[in-house]
Structures are given as structure tokens and as C-alpha cells.
């Protein structure tokens, strides 16, 4: 009973979030943020442990796997646009990954955060399933790093497009790559709404950032941690 109850609540909260999104038309109303807030309140009110909720909703979190695989589709639709862009995209993503990891570590250190928190922050700039594996290996808090990745995805979905316009980044490919590189799945879901090009390059950047970060993280960790 509780299994189907939490599944129902999760899908219903998401649907409510979509309804609010449609009614307000605001990018600040992200269905995933609305759903997390609603479910968090319901868990606290009912005294349900997070582990029980996570067990009940395994079916939904499992679907993240095939959905990640499906990100190949928007990328495939854009293969012609990728010609001549492989090197610039990899250079931009490499630079972004290093800046993101180093600034994350140093900001936590500067503000007096713990060593484990530095390690958690270092791995947060990749998609949730990857950051869990990386934080675990590096000695951070795996689940917290996944939360960071999701929160920053929500921030990216809310503010990313607007900030890029302020920063003077107008090319739809650069906009998609930038959001995908730092805001992963939730950011990519938002960029798919912006347009096919933005969505495709965002999904591409999310996948490649995972690869680039996995390769560069040992180096950054060796130098800084």
C-alpha cells in the first residue's frame, strides 16, 4: 500500500508542478523543485524516513537510466551541426570542468567547510548518477553530491538562460553546451523546452562533461586535496 501511495504522490506532485508551470508560464516554477518541496513536507508531516520513500519510488529513479541513454536521440538529430565543433566543445568543457572543480574546492576551504565537504563539492559538477560514484571514490558524501547536482540543475533551469543572455552568450549551441556542462539533467530538460539545438547540445555537454570530469578529477584532487 505505502509503495503505491508514494509512487502516486510523486507522480501527482510532478503533475501539479507541471500544471503550476503551465498556469504561471514562469521558468522559476520548475516541476521538479515544486515536487521535491511538496514531498519533503509530506515526509516530515507523516514521519516517513527518506530510505522508506526511496525504496517505494525505486521504479521512478530506475527510469533515470534509460532516460540518460535516450539523450543520444537529440544528439543524433544534431550530428550535422557537430561538424568541426568537436575540438572547441571539448576545450570549453575541459576549461569549465577545471574552473568548476577548483573554484568549488577553494570556496568551501575559504569559508571554513570540512574536508569531506570540499571533496563533495569537487565532484558535484556532473550528472547525478556520475557524481555519486565519484564522491564515493574521493571520500565525499555521495548522496549529498547528488543533491548538489540536482539543486544546481534546478538553479540552472531557473536562471541559466537569463544569465547567459546577460553574459552575452547568444549562440544556441554555446548556450546549450554551457547549461548542460554545469546543470546536467534538469538543465537539459529545460533547454529541450528552449529549442532542439539548445537541448541537443545540452545533452551532449552533460555526457561529455561526465567523461572530461572523470579524467581531470584525479589531477585536480592530487594538486588541491
Amino acid at each position, binding site marked *: 500500500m505505502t509503495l503505491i501511495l508514494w509512487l502516486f504522490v*510523486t*507522480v501527482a*506532485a*510532478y503533475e501539479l508542478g507541471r500544471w503550476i508551470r503551465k498556469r504561471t508560464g514562469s521558468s522559476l516554477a520548475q516541476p*521538479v523543485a515544486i515536487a*521535491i518541496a511538496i514531498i*519533503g513536507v509530506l*515526509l516530515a508531516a507523516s514521519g516517513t524516513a527518506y530510505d522508506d520513500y*526511496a525504496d517505494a*519510488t525505486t521504479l*521512478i*529513479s530506475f*527510469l533515470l*537510466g*534509460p*532516460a*540518460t*541513454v*535516450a539523450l*543520444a*536521440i*537529440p*544528439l543524433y*538529430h544534431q550530428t*550535422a*551541426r557537430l561538424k568541426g*565543433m568537436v575540438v*572547441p566543445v571539448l576545450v*570549453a568543457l575541459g*576549461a*569549465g*570542468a577545471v*574552473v*568548476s572543480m577548483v*573554484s*568549488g574546492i577553494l*570556496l*568551501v576551504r*575559504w569559508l*571554513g567547510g570540512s574536508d569531506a565537504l570540499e571533496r563533495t*563539492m569537487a565532484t558535484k*559538477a556532473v550528472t547525478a548518477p*556520475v557524481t555519486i560514484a565519484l564522491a564515493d571514490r574521493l571520500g565525499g*558524501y555521495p548522496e549529498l553530491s547528488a*543533491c*548538489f547536482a540536482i*539543486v544546481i540543475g534546478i538553479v540552472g533551469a531557473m536562471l*541559466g538562460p537569463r544569465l547567459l543572455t546577460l*553574459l552575452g552568450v*547568444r*549562440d544556441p*549551441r554555446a548556450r546549450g*553546451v*554551457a*547549461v548542460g*556542462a*554545469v546543470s546536467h*539533467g*534538469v538543465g537539459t530538460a529545460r533547454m529541450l523546452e528552449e529549442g532542439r539545438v539548445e537541448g541537443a547540445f545540452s545533452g551532449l555537454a552533460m*555526457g561529455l562533461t561526465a567523461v572530461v570530469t572523470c579524467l581531470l578529477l584525479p589531477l585536480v584532487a592530487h594538486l588541491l586535496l
Partner: protein
Amino acid sequence: MITGLLWLLGCQLAGTAIVDVTGIPLPGPVVGMLLLFIVLVVRRRGGEDDPIIQVGDYFLSHLQLFFIPAGVGVVVYFAIIRDAALPIVVALLGSWLLGLATVGWVLTLALRHLPGVGSEGAPGEEIE
């Protein structure tokens, strides 16, 4: 419908198997994504009636739903987050903003100065 689902799960399975065998530090679904990309390029179909595209597009249109259970996990870390709120918030937002600006600017510069790469996104033109 089922054919498309089989392809998605098959690529995830193959990706996970490759990770398990080789020990490369990547998650199975990410390798699966690269495999499905190769499959799509090799098949060269990908019309609207392609079952992979139909099922995949449906999954992608509700991508946010699948993140909700993990996102709710934030409640478990409430104490850590409260005790280290300042470093967490500043480092999270700061490194995110620096990363976003770096990627956006580096790529914008590269696209502007590289010959052979269009300076505009050429909206509307379809591929394949």
C-alpha cells in the same frame, strides 16, 4: 513501443557490462548513451515512426520526473547543510556561475574565430 524500450534497456545493459568489465570510471547509462548514438548513426533511419525515437522522446519529455526521488534525499542532509550553509551555498552557486561563464565564453570565442564553423546556429534547418 516495446522495440524502442528494448533498444534503450539494451544499450544501458551493454554500457553497464562494458563498465563492469573494463573498470572505466563512467556510469553505465552514460556509456549506453554513447552506444545508442552509434546505433542511430549506423542505422541512419530515425524518422518520426522509428520506435527508438518515439519511446526516447517520451522519456525525455518527462526527464525531470525521474530526478524527484533523488532530489527529495536533500532532507537527509538537512543537519550538514544547516551547519555549513554559507560554504555550501556560496561554493555551489559560485562554482556553478564560474563554470557556466567559462564554458559559454570559451565556446562563443572559439565559434567566432574558427573558420569552417558557422557563427550562427542556423535555426530551422533540419539534419539528415
